[in-house]
């Protein structure tokens, strides 16, 4: 391994370590964010800080690592358009239906499931994973 290759290897390892530490800290911060009361200013600021931190980590990752530039293959994306379109249509139908107990939406079902703090924190992990996919 040459000097240059060794330098690149160290740089990549360092970036990976920084990002992993950052994500662990972000999940720890998420425990506090998901403990905030509904509609609180502290909760709103917490979500914003977590979002900005994740975008910063993603930027660090994109600059330090070789990003995946493989073509996603736009053909057959229509399959996903049909599936997601069906979910959006059903969400709208249930959203317009009343009462909410008889026509549960994604949000109302999530509210019920998220009554437990630990489950809410797991949801936070899913939200971080989705943001990571979008930002990297």
């Amino acid at each position, binding site marked *: 391994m040459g000097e240059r290759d060794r330098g690149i290897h160290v740089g990549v390892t360092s970036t990976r370590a920084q990002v992993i530490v950052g994500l662990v800290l972000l999940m720890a911060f998420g425990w506090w964010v998901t403990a905030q009361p*509904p509609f609180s200013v502290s909760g709103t600021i917490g*979500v914003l800080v977590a979002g900005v931190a994740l975008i910063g980590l993603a930027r660090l990752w994109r600059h330090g690592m070789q990003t995946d530039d493989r073509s996603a293959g736009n053909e057959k994306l229509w399959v*996903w358009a049909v599936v997601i379109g*069906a979910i959006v249509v059903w969400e709208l139908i249930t959203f317009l239906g009343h009462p909410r107990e008889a026509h549960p939406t994604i949000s109302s079902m999530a509210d019920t499931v998220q009554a437990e703090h630990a489950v809410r924190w797991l949801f936070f992990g899913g939200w971080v994973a989705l943001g990571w996919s979008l930002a990297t």
Partner: protein
Amino acid sequence: MTSRTATFVVWGVLAALLIATEVLAVTTRRIPTVGALLRSLVRHPAMRVVFLAAWLWLGWHFFVRSSR
């Protein structure tokens, strides 16, 4: 069947459809995976900004607005 049960049944079918599509994508590679779909959606920088803004709103919606 009550409205509530019928609504849950449709949600269940849609969730199964979503999972089946992803499993089909991963196992057969004949359709894009969710990851490939997201990559194609955010390929343009402006679209990335729009989707990240929507993602931030989603975080606020689920963790702050929640009526738990």
